């Protein structure tokens, strides 16, 4: 599937995750020191925000997203005219699906002199309208053809269903990787897996999730989706083995919810119920705090694994009304399905 040339040598995922935490701890120490003397620099805070977002993504830690968001709010409060501060907050807002506010921050960053190429990339990530995002992604890839620009364009083509073009671009992106951090490559492999999962090609999806996990063994989203593929292919035992540690280590209820579903399907009703209750409580909490980010996930949960929650369809409809995405067939009925 992957030739030697397409396999960039990267740092062990174990080392990289250890070092990511070491970077965060080290920068936190630096900020603590700076606080005693003078205000921490915007650059230090912006780097820490990016690191927290990465840590949150890789390990499935929503608490990291929340810390990054708090830090970004403080950063913009203290340096409202700094482009780096605005960009950092835009990233945290986008992570929590507050796209309109994120775009407003990007406009502010532009007025503060942010790099137009960086702004294009950030705007493309925020635009719900795929057509507009595609223009920006193609312009970026035409201007500078590197791993980041080609990879972003490839992911977008995949989301549009153009898997042939996406595959070509994804392969090209891998050959253009010039670093040793495993996270960008693992992330691209994960997105490739998602593309094939969406296209219904479970073996291809599984292979790319495996590639991501091989590179970063603790990569939570890849592990979670690999477990879904396992379950869909009939290997529930393996899916459960993957999901149990994730449901414990991650504060994202998606893993507990998936574990509950697979356990239920496998006939482990008692343990399934425990994880279902755990996911329900966490979804309640997260929808209250971050409705834009979790309403759709919570709705899907309450329509399926959650079953007994009447607000599921309403919540889901409200969410999809604000997005251009098609309303799932699941919502054509008011009756939750499991």
């Amino acid at each position, binding site marked *: 599937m992957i030739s030697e040339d397409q396999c960039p*040598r*990267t*740092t*062990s995922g*174990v*080392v*990289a995750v*250890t*070092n990511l*935490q*070491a*970077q*965060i*701890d*080290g*920068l*936190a*120490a*630096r*900020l*603590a*020191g*700076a*606080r005693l*003397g*003078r205000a*921490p*620099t915007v*650059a230090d*805070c912006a*780097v820490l925000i990016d690191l927290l977002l990465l840590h949150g993504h890789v390990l499935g830690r929503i608490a990291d997203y929340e*810390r990054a968001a*708090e*830090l970004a*709010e*403080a950063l913009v*409060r*203290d340096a409202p005219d700094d482009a780096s501060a605005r960009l950092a907050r835009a990233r945290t807002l986008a992570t929590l699906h507050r796209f309109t506010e994120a775009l407003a921050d990007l406009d502010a960053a532009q007025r503060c002199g942010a790099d137009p190429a960086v702004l294009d990339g950030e705007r493309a990530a925020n635009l719900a309208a795929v057509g507009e995002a595609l223009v920006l992604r193609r312009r970026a890839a035409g201007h500078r053809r590197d791993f980041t620009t080609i990879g972003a364009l490839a992911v977008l083509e995949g989301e549009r269903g153009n898997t042939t073009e996406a595959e070509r671009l994804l392969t090209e992106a891998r050959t253009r990787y*010039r*670093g*040793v*951090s495993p996270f*960008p490559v693992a992330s691209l492999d994960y997105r490739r897996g998602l593309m094939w999962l969406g296209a219904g090609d479970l073996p291809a999806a599984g292979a790319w999730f495996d590639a991501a996990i091989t590179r970063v*063994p603790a990569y939570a989203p890849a592990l979670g989706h690999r477990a879904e593929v396992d379950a869909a292919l009939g290997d529930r035992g393996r899916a459960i083995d993957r999901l149990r540690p994730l449901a414990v280590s991650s504060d994202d209820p998606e893993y507990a919810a998936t574990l509950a579903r697979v356990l239920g399907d496998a006939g482990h009703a008692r343990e399934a119920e425990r994880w279902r209750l755990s996911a329900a409580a966490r979804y309640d909490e997260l929808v209250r705090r971050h409705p834009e980010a979790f309403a759709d996930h919570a709705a899907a949960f309450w329509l399926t694994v959650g079953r007994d929650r009447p607000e599921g369809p309403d919540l889901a409809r409200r969410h999809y009304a604000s997005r251009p995405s098609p309303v799932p067939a699941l919502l054509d009925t008011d009756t939750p399905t499991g």
Partner: protein
Amino acid sequence: MADHFSGPRAIADPASDITDVYVFPSPERPGHLVLVLNVFPSAAPAALFSDALRYRFRLRPVTVTTAGGTPVFVPDADEYAFDVGFAAPSPDGGGGMQAGTCVTPSGAEIPVQVGEEKPTEMFGVRVFAGPRLDPFFIDLVAEQAAHTLGRLAFRADGVNAVNGANVLSLVVELDVAAVLGRDTGPLLAVVGETVVAGPHPVRLERMGRPEIKNFILQDKQFDNVNRDLELRDLYNAEDAFNLSPAYVGAYRARLNANLPFFDRLDGRIDWRPDDQGVHPLTGMLLADFLVVDTSKPFTDGGFLEIERAVLAGRPHTTCGGRAPDDDIVDIFYTLLVGGLDGPRISDGVDGPTRPATRSFPYLNSPNPDPPDLRAVLAAVSAPPKAAT
């Protein structure tokens, strides 16, 4: 800072980000040379070396020539390299140390354990690898203010931006005669590098003199040739001993554009560019390596002494190179701003968090107590207190 966070790629992968390179005669063992390569700015003590990299010291004998009108250092073709590689720890952690291997110029392999205080010593070489207190020091805010204000902004009571921070250190001490040969030197050019391991050895970072990238190359606004170009990743990828002819013009243009900025900071011109706009220091700084005299004894404060002597047309008197306690910010600013005879310019920070030791590995143990992240973020996120 010296080379901390020196480019977008380095930020993405801290274990490849060289913060500093030092070279100095051993204060403990005459006839021995010490090489230090620090990576990973603001590292927590748990930080590890990348298993996808080779950490490399390259040494070449060097001579001085004035053939082009201005004195420059010219490295020989002969090279001595020390390559250090590391394995990944086992996926389950297991509490085991990270293991590495240092390969000497003769191909001898010396095992090293990360964090092991007792150094490995074989074949005339001692090796240490592990977290250490960052020996660098600078009033970074005041230094950056100079770039914003266009005038010196240092204060007598400067604040060390690196106070209490850790790095990952590689320290190699070698018996010069036994390892390099009795006839090698005494002037040596030294650079440190991080290079991708395996069949495609892409150079990610390289460092000779401190602050070439962050002080001098980073600013774009004076550069009429490449005003929009982030040069530092490109510069990092270069062979310090053989700059690419395709890009050397870009580096030269950036140096010629930015060096006069420093000269103007005291309101006086000490370095007059030639009629082509070439700054007198450009050629010497483009030869971006540390120069050390292995025949001289250890001394603090040797940084740029050999270069200054060459520029002044006099014999050098010290070992040169760079020792951990050398105040490179003061030395650099004094030279760039005031010329060869200007008064000393100080950033108000005259030493590291803790002075270097006089015994191997010369760098202090790391700061073991990173603060609690939640507490730090709460403090940073809290609204500023109203003045009373």
